[in-house]
């Protein structure tokens, strides 16, 4: 019997920091794999409210070289904890309008349970270690979002 569908190890596929609109179709193509039974995609979007105030738009700023290195680390940590077939992670920068996607993470696994857990771990970890900052704009002002002190090794 052919065991050609077995993969020796997961692959780090995509890490990207981009000022362009995130191409979800391409991201999902990037994690396409015939050994996959479940794909979980997370999209972070610019929401029209925060802390009870109406938000009108959002700016994202990154420390680019370090952010990409830390995004890779997010993938590696995720691959170390779950049997992931493919993973892709894209974070956007610049001025975003309401409803636009700021971050997208796609995780493909043989089983859905792993895909859900791995994807959630990836976004949680991204928020803990990737150096990105966002500023909210309100009808009557603007403010840097209160962040978290990064988790360091």
């Amino acid at each position, binding site marked *: 019997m052919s065991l050609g569908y077995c993969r020796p190890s997961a692959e780090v596929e995509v890490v990207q920091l981009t000022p362009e609109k995130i191409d979800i179709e391409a991201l999902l193509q990037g994690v396409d794999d015939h050994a996959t039974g479940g794909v979980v995609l997370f999209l972070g979007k610019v929401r029209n409210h925060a802390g009870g105030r109406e938000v009108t738009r959002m700016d994202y700023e990154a*420390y680019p070289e370090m952010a990409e290195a830390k995004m890779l680390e997010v993938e590696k940590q995720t691959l170390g904890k779950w049997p992931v077939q493919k993973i892709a992670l894209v974070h956007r920068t610049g001025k975003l309008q309401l409803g636009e996607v700021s971050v997208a993470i796609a995780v493909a696994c043989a089983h859905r349970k792993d895909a859900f857990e791995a994807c959630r771990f990836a976004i949680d970890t991204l*928020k803990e*270690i990737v150096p990105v*900052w966002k*500023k909210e704009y309100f009808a009557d002002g603007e403010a840097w979002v209160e*962040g*978290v002190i990064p988790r360091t090794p």
Partner: protein
Amino acid sequence: MKITLKFFGQLRELTKCDETEIQVKEDTMVEDLIWVLGERFPNIREHLKVVSFSIDNEYAGKGTVLQDGNVVGLLPPISGG
């Protein structure tokens, strides 16, 4: 010796500075920068209490000794995603 400082987010805005080079003495530790920076940019003193540092794109503990040519990032609490 010389190091490069990079400012981000609110710190970049408050200092009106993206990047600058400064001279530091041998054996300067990351935590010593807090005092140096507080002198040069009094309006970020409060923020320096919660700043994290990177050296050459990796988080650095406050006790790390700086080397000539290091690129040091001043990172406010992060809010990506």
